[in-house]
């Protein structure tokens, strides 16, 4: 599923980073990787913005980043099986 579809507070792991097509996309993918959005890393949505639920604050590993929706939509995640919270 896309990171944008992940429920706030649910633990997940990054599966892949798939930027949309275009030259800028390649750079976007690399940039997300440089911030730590890499396969296998733990990820969680911390908060969402008020207007149009944008931007979203995402915990990746031990850091937190605010992303726009188009950025977050590139990130595919898989929710962790955690004990029901």
């Amino acid at each position, binding site marked *: 599923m896309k990171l944008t579809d992940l429920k706030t507070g649910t633990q997940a792991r990054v599966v892949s*980073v798939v930027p949309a097509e275009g030259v*800028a996309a390649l*750079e*976007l*993918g*690399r*940039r*997300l*990787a*440089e*911030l*730590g959005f*890499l*396969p*296998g*890393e*733990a990820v969680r949505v*911390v*908060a*969402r*913005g*008020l*207007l*149009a639920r*944008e*931007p979203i*604050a995402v*915990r*990746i*590993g*031990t*850091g*937190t*980043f*605010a*992303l*726009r929706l*188009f*950025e977050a939509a590139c990130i595919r995640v898989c929710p962790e099986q955690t004990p029901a919270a």
Partner: protein
Amino acid sequence: MEALSGAQPIPLVALVGNPNCGKTALFNVLTGSRQKVANYAGVTVERKEGALLTPSGSRVRILDLPGAYSLDPLTPDEQVTADVLLGRRAGETAPDFVVCVTDATNLRQNLRLVLSLKRLGLPMVVALNMTDIARRKGIVIDAERLARELGVAVVETVGVKASGAKRLIEMLDSAAIPARAAGKFEWHTPSTADIAQDQAEVRRILTAVGADRIDGVTFSDQLDAVVLHPVAGPLILAAILFLVFQAVFAWAQLPMDAIKTGVDALAGWLGHAMPESLLKGLLVNGVLAGVGSVFVFLPQIIILFFFILMLEESGYLPRAAFLLDRLMGSVGLSGRAFIPLLSSFACAIPGVMATRTIQNPRDRLATIMIAPLMTCSARLPVYALIIGAFIPQRTLWGGLQLQGIVLFALYLVGVASAMAVAYVLKRAGAKARLQTLMLELPVYHWPNLRNLAIGLWQRVEIFLSRVGTIILALMVILWALSSFPTPPPGATGPAIQYSIAGHLGSWLAVIFKPIGFNWQISIALVPGLAAREVAVGALGTVYALSVTGENVSGALTPLIAHSWSLPTALSLLAWYVFAPQCLSTLATVKRETNSWRYPIIMAAYLFALAYLGSFITFRVATALSSLG
């Protein structure tokens, strides 16, 4: 000069690290107040260099490179860091030694940069910073093991403690920093797969040193649950912004009045003590007035930057940007533009200086460009004079005062046109490409007083030494324009009428006729370039009033109410909404953008808007009054 030929060149050590790793705090501990803040040539990225005197008495230059996530630059900050490290930045010597600063609580992110730097082959040491916070969180990192795994020396540091860099200093002392290896460093942009491989290595190292741990819900998270909450978040933000606005607007009033009174008193004393002469004119009306108009901004700048540094150090500022991103983004501004624009309501000068917190250079420029459209407090005396003279004191339904509504409308027109200009700038810019955000929200910290004081002092120093000197020079020039040539013997009009400013004014009167300004207004606008409120005093001079100071406005009110038409008055109000009648702002823009280009563009577009706005106002008001 001492003979330098025999001496060893002073080694240059660069601090490199991710943003928010506590690098600047460590830099402050290493160099104390021995810092020089400037800009890198050709860009607006701040260059901070300091000197470290090691216990053995040798000198080391320390360069605090801008924060970077990688050596493949995406921001101007990262460009500078990469270029300096690779020795390809003109005018900068490549560092002899690198201290890679890492946040011990966030090694998972920070170690990738260490691996990149290691690949680069520069001699380096890793500073394991914020170990105090890590320890409090129960993260104990085996530094020796980390050094073995990385193959690079590692020292623990605490950037917020004066003694926190002891081991690092010892190392920089004894390292007898090797002479830099000749030749250029090779760097190949890694692919995403390369980065993933680095991350696998980071995970392996973290497991080995016993730091492979991800906290569940932290204190910062609990705070964020409230601060970033869709309802509570904006309320908290509004409260904080209100406090900042109040402080800049109201708290600064007392010291500003004190500075004005002090300068006036000094001018008055000089006026009595010195015989009437050219020198006296220069001193009192040129230099002293100039110095006064520089210092009068200081209280606002200090108060504003105190709050900005507090918010920045604590980690709140990026959260505010998060909350406002969507709102400001709709007109093409960054969420971080809010504080600079808000403080521009008090004065555009601290506002423009505050845009340093906006990292994206295009966003920053757009914010600088529209800052003067926020109605600053210096416009109030002009507004008050004209509204008092022309807008009847009438109470409308609901107890609203007509005069108050007009004033509010003037503020609103300023804000609306700022948004419109921002929107046009966004459209005119590069093809509507999706702007990335990728803004780090660092863990909350208590602001460190020492860092706060150093940061505040640097702002004050920059303002006084760079902006202040330009403002002072402009004030003296303006005084000369308004004083020379002196009136011929037997002249009857006010002295200013015979000066260059007076002649300029009478030429301007031709240009300003279509928007309804008479020659008195046109002349007053010339010295009024010094600062908006000066125009009131200048009008007093032109109308040859004998009163001075506070009483000018009172004496002028019936005079202009009598001699100006309502369309002229409204036209002048419209003029003041837009016109860049403030050389100090333009001087600040020159300093902050490092070029004359932007202040010139700014002045041109604001004058054009002002002329257009006044023209429309004058014509419409004239048409309406002939109807009525």
